């Protein structure tokens, strides 16, 4: 039976950061800490650390939702291979 039971694990699909074509780049200076990006990141890949946000690039899939929702344009999507 054990093999039919799963337990909470980050990265159940592996390091999904590899799926990215675009990477969200965060500019702390523009940020007003509204946390909208944190709330709306579908991947739950954004953490709040001391009121600031922090993106977990191991898992961030690069969907771009955070960049879109940020009124302050504090997140920018940049092509992975241009990095």
């Amino acid at each position, binding site marked *: 039976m054990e093999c039919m039971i*799963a337990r909470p694990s980050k*990265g159940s699909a592996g390091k999904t950061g590899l799926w990215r074509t675009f990477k969200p780049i965060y500019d702390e200076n523009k940020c007003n800490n509204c946390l909208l990006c944190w709330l709306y990141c579908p991947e739950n890949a954004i953490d709040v650390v001391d009121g600031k946000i922090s993106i*977990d690039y191991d898992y961030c899939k*690069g969907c*771009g939702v955070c960049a*879109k*929702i940020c009124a302050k344009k504090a997140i920018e999507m940049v092509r992975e291979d241009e990095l």
Partner: protein
Amino acid sequence: MVVVKIKDLPKEKFLLPGNTSCQGCPHALGLKSLGMALGDDVVLVVPAGCTTIIAGSKDKSSFKFPCLHVPFASAPAVATGLGSAFRRLGKKGIPVVWMGDGGSDIGFATLSGACVRKDDMIVIVSDNEAYMNTGIQTSGTTFWKARTTTSPTGKREEKKDLALIMLMHKADYVATASVGYLQDFIGKLRKASEIDGFRFIHLHSPCPPGWGFDSSETVEMARLAVKCGAWILWEFDGKFRISPMSKPYADKSKRAPLTEYLKKQRRFRHLSDEDIAEIERRIDEQWRVVLALEDVF
């Protein structure tokens, strides 16, 4: 209406990063919100659908709540049994059925039965307006004229209005919600959790690959649906009310242009002007009904 402030939301993650959801997945947004709203009171019951995949595989679960996978048509009935077990064994928790619109097609008798019995559960239909997991086929809630792989020239039937139908079932709590307004959704979940019996939330979940828009636009698309009036947020908790986020759009002049919503989606690319006019007519009619219901219930 429960008011939800972002800063007060718990930081614990119940949907874990690195799962199989596509980029910009609306179910993922819904599931993370569920965790924020109800935390570890949740016991998920998940019928077949994208969420089956998102849930993880092998020994790895993407959820920090318990989750029971169940056959496609069975979820509310399984929740009935689980709820009975929690109650009898004195365990505090809520069976939460998380299903797709497809699940509410094949499982509509099951859903209706559990509702009529007022069994203790929260049912959330995360409606991405098609069977996505099997590759974008038409469901009962697919939008009129939307293209899917089983309706390659556009669906001919109207979108099934699940929430109003459940309202007529006399469910104890009924609401519509949207992944574009997560605070509203979280508030509704919390409200629902305070009510006993059968609680139903119809969550609007725009899906990037299924609808044909960029993964960054999930939230925007969801909001556009509300802003153009095509998706109306409301709540019934004994009293029927249009939710604040939708309220302004009762006034047609305040609505965003419908074409903005439609034209961004590949599934609507073929629409004629008459089609769009017809959709607008139907939206107006829906508003008329919903506004009237505010007086009735």
